[in-house]
């Protein structure tokens, strides 16, 4: 076999990733420690800190490979830390209004904010996918720690095969969601958000993420038992983030069924699933 290798199409900037992970973990910790009582003030502090760190500018500038390589790890760090500051919204609009701070305890099953411009909706959907993948990772990591500490029937939950397999399936959904999310992001980063095949990749990624959110939340809550269903335990933040970002993602794409039907229509028009999928996944190719 020849040893000729190919470089990944897209890779997050490791320096930004490290800085963002550290910063958002710190911000989230301080937010959750100090809120109790004056939540508005806590959120304002958070906003000010994000302004200072320069992450907001990086997101507003995400429109090419380098831009996205910085934006993606910032989004993921915020989601992983469950810092209640909606960094993805900055992809859609340069304004750094209070709109980006949100109440982490509130979930209303609404569509969330929808930008008017199509380009902004696409950028926001790409951001939501990154946030969802990272929030899934965080929920799963929390659960993996919990099942190794929590004992029932005289042994850690992690030793029960039913738990092992349930979390393995959740991990598979995380990997699938990340693969779909990153595939769409790589397309936007290398070909721009006007690329014909991006619509396919976004609809596909939304469907994969939508299912992933169901499976991952179910497995994580189930493994945690009642503690995971409390407001103060950290799973709740990731769980609610997953719901709000999933809902907003589908709203941005016109709904879950619309995503599926559009993909189905493409396959029908092209005369085959295989033809459609391979074309949409070919760099520089159109979808059919």
């Amino acid at each position: 076999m020849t040893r000729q290798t190919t470089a990944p199409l897209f890779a997050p900037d490791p320096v930004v990733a490290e800085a963002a992970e550290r910063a958002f973990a710190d911000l989230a910790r301080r937010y959750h420690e100090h809120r109790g009582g004056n939540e508005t003030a806590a959120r304002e502090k958070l906003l000010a800190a994000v302004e200072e760190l320069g992450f907001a500018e990086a997101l507003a500038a995400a429109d090419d490979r380098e831009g996205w390589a910085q934006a993606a790890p910032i989004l993921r760090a915020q989601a992983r830390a469950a810092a209640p500051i909606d960094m993805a919204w900055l992809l859609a609009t340069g304004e750094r209004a209070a709109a980006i701070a949100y109440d982490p305890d509130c979930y209303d099953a609404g569509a969330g904010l929808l930008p008017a411009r199509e380009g902004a909706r696409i950028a926001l959907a790409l951001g939501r996918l990154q946030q969802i993948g990272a929030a899934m990772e965080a929920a799963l990591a929390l659960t993996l720690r919990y099942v190794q500490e929590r004992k029932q029937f005289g042994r850690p939950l992690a030793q029960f095969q039913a738990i092992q397999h349930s979390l393995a399936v959740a991990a598979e959904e995380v990997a699938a969601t990340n693969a779909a999310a990153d595939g769409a992001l790589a397309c936007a980063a290398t070909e721009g958000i006007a690329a014909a095949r991006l619509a396919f990749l976004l609809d596909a990624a939304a469907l994969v993420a939508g299912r992933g959110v169901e499976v991952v939340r179910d497995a994580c809550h189930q493994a945690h038992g009642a503690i995971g269903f409390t407001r103060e335990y950290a799973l709740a933040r990731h769980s609610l983030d997953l719901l709000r970002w999933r809902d907003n993602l589908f709203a941005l794409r016109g709904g879950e069924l619309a995503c599926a039907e559009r993909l189905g229509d493409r396959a029908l028009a092209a005369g085959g699933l295989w033809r459609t999928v391979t074309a949409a996944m070919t760099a520089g190719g159109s979808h059919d």
Partner: protein
Amino acid sequence: MRLRFPVHALPPEAERLRAEVREFIAQELAAGLWKPGGDFASHYDPAFSRRLAARGWIGMTWPRRYGGAERTMLERFVVTEELLAAGAPVAAHWIADRQSGPLLLRYGSESQRREFLPRIARGEIFFSIGMSEPDAGSDLAAVRTRATKVAGGWQLTGRKVWTTFAHLNHYAIVLARTGDAGESRHAGLSQFIVDLKAPNVEVRPIVNMAGAHEFNEVVFDGTFVPEDRLVGEPGNGWTQVTSELAFERSGPERYLSSLQLAEAALACARERPSPRLREALGRMAARLAALRAMSIAIAAELQAGEMPNVEAALVKDLGNAFEREVIAVCRALAAELPRQTAEFTTALAQTTLYAPSWTLRGGTREILRSIVARGLGLR
């Protein structure tokens, strides 16, 4: 373990190769040489394998001196996925190309490579896997087939089961006990290239639930195996059989087994698709794209010389689940298809019959999930 794989685009040379493979398949179909159907493990056609070999598409990543074409893993990926998507009859050469050849390339002696690899690459000889036994399924370390040292070689005694196409193939790579199992139970195992037509080898058919004779029971009754047919070091068998699992578990054969059925459903409804069918096809396309992205990422890592075995187990489990979901969805939609072609009803029956085997072969769902769980640090 990593739950985020790097995004790889297939390089332009691989995409050019795709066009060649599609053209080849179109010619084959136009000439009526075979009908699409079956999957990588059931659709057996030696003449097809030889035509494929003539194109340089068997053993295509191997060095030229062993009959290979020195193409990349990503080029091989494209050839295999196009053949599988088309329902081409790849079963004859599949194991030799995917598994036995690479094993010999990595662990075989120079004379074994020179003897077997060029013949595999020419589509002349086909291999079976001799691993499972009546008491050793998922628990492979429990194998009892024994090879005892005798003058000039080894004497093999034992029984292998589920040996696919042993009645048609030329050789099997047999895993046998040659020494003590040790504490780990993984010691004392060795691999041998066994001539399936040799004296004291009996191949008995095992007909599967679909009514086909693919499986066999292979009985070794003091079979003589020459010294130079031992693969690698004696006692190193466990390492050898488990070292290339990424290769066996991450490929498109793990998520394309029911694609023909989905394509047939699409063809039945192209003019008047119901909303539910449009939705179902869309969900399949989404799932397929994600699986394929992960499979390509692993192929790129294989090309770079890595062996991501845990990630491959993850892809196989997800892929097998997808293959089975497609059947359930197509069955539910069958009644509202505007028409049902023979291709659709045949594919529905075939996939329904074969589906239980998909989540067994190459590592059961339970084994795969346990591997992923270990990767997550749970065991």
